């Protein structure tokens, strides 16, 4: 039959040409990404297919693509609803092209035209791969719309059919199904879990083989990441455990896009309770994540850093695993990264490591984290400074006396004192807590006087006194209490008065201990 010949021809073209035109394909894929970014109305978690990587190129950029306006919905409806395979194919392809156009594709019109049932039925026509392919592509693009669009696709029964298509011997058809399913999973936890129940994961994982082309793997990794995504609820633990081994495999490849999406997947999986983090770190992936955190490509560094940041927000054991994997050698670099958000994420991770036991705090000191910490305290943008302040306070809370002294000597005290005038009351309170903790350490050394003097020299007293004017009453109280406790002037307010029969008796205020030098 003619269609079969067409199919054969295409496949043969695919086999011959696939590799030569890799660059051109990449360009189109990146154009696809560009269009994606430009379309702000589109749901962020979905991707519309402008061009598929495993598609033969002639198919891809046929001139008709630009003449989409010449297709009329009524013609499409008539064709798709006919019993003639050729007409159906023609109609379906026309719809696909309409749905693939750059600006404002008519997703709703196609849905309202009642075409979805037909498209879904085309998916199962194994003897009509062209039709299957066009229908899968059309449905992908509809599912890339908002939740209503995706809902329509699912309601018309596309999911089981698409999952079946994953096993298609035609790579481009299988890949198209991967893409469509990625869009549906990305809609939210509801559809994600429906897909999982329909056993999408084993079907997807079966598509990974040593021969799988990179472009295919990129789509697949992205779809997997959407299955890892979203909380409330998190993906079922069993599903996560199914996906993890493959994600680990993908994380060891060298293609940057695969690495990026795989890191995103891990960052989503590690964003949860400690047992979620546990499942992730037990795969042994932490060293690889630390490696990827050290990459210069921002789109790899960012999710890897986020994943590590999530992991160190877990237990002390989880944190130790990252330290053992060398995270402390990379963090100083990231604290000095030109991009403020990277600095901020690094400072956040540092603050969580500093919230650990003193053994880990010691490792912070040994690995030279104090100087870059002080640098961001001084020069970072405010969001980064906030994280750094948390790091200081956590440090003073969990650190030994010697460690707190090291912290002070590094210049951190001066730096946080210089932040005492900021707008954010929470930050001020955290700083005051750090100073209180430093005094507690000083008490153990018998050196509170010296610390008081140091704070005075650093200009801290004026700033703390000023805080008593703060509009926030808690800040006022904290500042007031700090002065009262460690900078007491022997103020009259402190004098207790007892009245007795003979007059007034006064208890003396506490005398400050003097330290001999």
């Amino acid at each position: 039959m003619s269609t079969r010949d067409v199919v054969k021809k295409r496949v043969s073209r695919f086999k011959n040409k696939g590799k030569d035109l890799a660059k051109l394909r990449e360009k189109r894929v990146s154009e696809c990404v560009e269009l994606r970014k430009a379309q702000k109305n589109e749901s962020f978690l979905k991707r519309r297919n402008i061009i598929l990587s495993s598609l033969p190129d002639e198919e891809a950029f046929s001139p008709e693509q630009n003449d989409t306006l010449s297709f009329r919905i009524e013609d499409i409806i008539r064709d798709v609803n006919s019993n003639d395979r050729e007409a159906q194919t023609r109609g379906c392809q026309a719809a696909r092209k309409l749905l693939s156009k750059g600006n404002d594709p008519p997703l709703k019109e196609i849905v309202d035209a009642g075409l979805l049932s037909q498209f879904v039925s085309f998916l199962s026509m194994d003897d009509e791969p062209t039709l299957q392919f066009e229908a899968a592509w059309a449905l992908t693009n509809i599912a890339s719309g908002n939740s209503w669009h995706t809902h329509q696709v699912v309601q018309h029964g596309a999911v089981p059919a698409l999952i079946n298509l994953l096993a298609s011997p035609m790579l481009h058809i299988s890949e198209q199904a991967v893409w469509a399913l990625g869009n549906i999973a990305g809609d939210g936890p509801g559809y994600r879990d429906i897909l999982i129940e329909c056993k999408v994961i084993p079907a997807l994982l079966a598509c990974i083989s040593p021969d799988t082309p990179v472009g295919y793997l990129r789509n697949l990794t992205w779809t997997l990441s959407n299955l890892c995504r979203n909380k409330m609820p998190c993906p079922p633990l069993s599903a996560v455990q199914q996906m993890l081994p493959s994600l680990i495999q993908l994380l060891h490849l060298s293609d940057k896009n695969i690495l990026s999406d795989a890191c995103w997947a891990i960052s989503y999986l590690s964003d949860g309770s400690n047992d979620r983090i546990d499942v992730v770190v037990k795969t042994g992936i932490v060293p690889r994540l630390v490696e990827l955190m050290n990459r210069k490509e921002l789109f790899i560094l960012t999710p890897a850093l986020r994943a590590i940041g999530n992991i160190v927000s877990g237990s002390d054991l989880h944190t130790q695993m990252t330290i053992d994997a060398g995270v402390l050698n990379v963090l100083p670099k990231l604290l000095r990264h030109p991009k403020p958000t990277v600095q901020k994420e690094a400072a956040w991770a540092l603050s969580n490591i500093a919230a650990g036991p003193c053994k880990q705090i010691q490792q912070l000191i040994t690995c030279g984290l104090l100087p870059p910490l002080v640098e961001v305290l001084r020069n970072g943008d405010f969001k980064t400074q906030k994280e750094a302040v948390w790091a200081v306070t956590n440090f003073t809370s969990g650190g030994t006396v010697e460690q707190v002294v090291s912290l002070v000597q590094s210049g951190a005290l001066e730096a946080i004192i210089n932040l005492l005038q900021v707008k954010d009351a929470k930050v001020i309170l955290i700083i005051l807590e750090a100073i209180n903790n430093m005094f507690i350490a000083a008490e153990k050394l018998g050196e509170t006087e010296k610390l008081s003097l140091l704070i005075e020299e650093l200009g801290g007293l004026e700033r703390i006194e000023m805080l008593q004017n703060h509009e926030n009453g808690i800040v006022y109280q904290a500042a007031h209490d700090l002065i009262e406790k460690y900078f007491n002037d022997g103020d009259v307010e402190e004098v207790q008065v007892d009245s007795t029969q003979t007059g007034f008796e006064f208890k003396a205020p506490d005398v400050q201990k003097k330290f001999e030098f």
Partner: protein
Amino acid sequence: MAKRIADKELTDRNWDQEEEGEEAGTFSVASEDVLKNRAIKKAKRRNTGGESEGGGAFKGFKGFSMAAPSTTPSSSLTAFSGFGGTGSFKGFGGLSNGTGSTPSFSGFPSAAKAGVAFNGPSSAQPGADIAAQQTNGSAPGPSPAPCSRSREYSRQLTALNQSVRDWISKHVNDNPLCDLNPIFRDYERHLASIERHKTSTEDPGQKRSGSAPLPAGVSFNFGQKVDAPALGSLTSKPSVPSFSFSSSSNQSSPFGSAGPSAALSFGGTKTSDAPAADDKDEESEEPPKPEVKEVKEDDAFYSKKCKLFYKKESEFKEKGVGTLHLKRTAEGKTQMIVRADTNLGNILLNILVPSTLPCSRVGKNNVMVVCVPNPPVDDKNPSVAVPLLIRVKTAEDADELHKTLEEKKG
């Protein structure tokens, strides 16, 4: 557990969006009503002017020293370790002396900031960089590399620039409309004297010919009519230079201004906190005190500077700072007058001291008396006896006052 989860969801879609920046900003002050009801505490200053315990602090100080262990003892940086010896803080004592002065920070303390660098070896450079930026045309610009100058010079320049930076930022924060000219004049003066000092203590290979050598650790006065000769009689010790800047920056002549208690009450509060600083105060940076002593009490047989408090409800409220005088009246009775240390010299207390006056020693340095206050403290109950607390500088002074009152009352 102090671990914190991520504050913001990060995805493959939003990670490279421009984040809205957040400004550190400055906090808002509470309203007048709220402030009125707050007890504002003043922090005790420990850093006294010119005391040699500065050196002792370096020696004995193991804990919170800022010394980077790798620096040599003679380096300027160890001199910063611990806490600078000379009265080295910038303060605005005017904060609590709220007798209605002009902008609340118009006063400035006697011993001002020592501009100590607390950040270990790396600190020299930031200081020097600031120096490079802040220098004006008249003084030779210091080179950004401190190693090409004497350490002492760098130290002093760092201290000067940090003082200026902090002073300016504080005052502009408080009152953006202030006139900073006096400060720049003071800066020029200080810079010139540092320069003179530097050249006089360095090799002849330097640019300028040296003038009379000045000892290290000189402290500078700002805003005074006195010039260089007033400097430098301090013993040379490795104390950190201290700089003070003119007080009220929005008045043309910083001193001798009508700003009532602000500038002048510093003298009061500061010296009362720095007992050993008196002998250095002649050449120090305190605003001239002559105004304070204008109003003299001729026939007092006992006078003592003090702070007067009166008891209201369950706490003591400050009446003011002034001088207490004891006089003999024509009838042979004893009169106690406390006059405020202002130009007006208004009376804070004026009573006869009867033999029955309850008078007790309280705390470290206070004397308590109970009497009907004149002028009244409570207009609704003007003839009710009220406890008054007289706070003096030292315990010895308190003992003396108490003894004198006991002897002379009645």
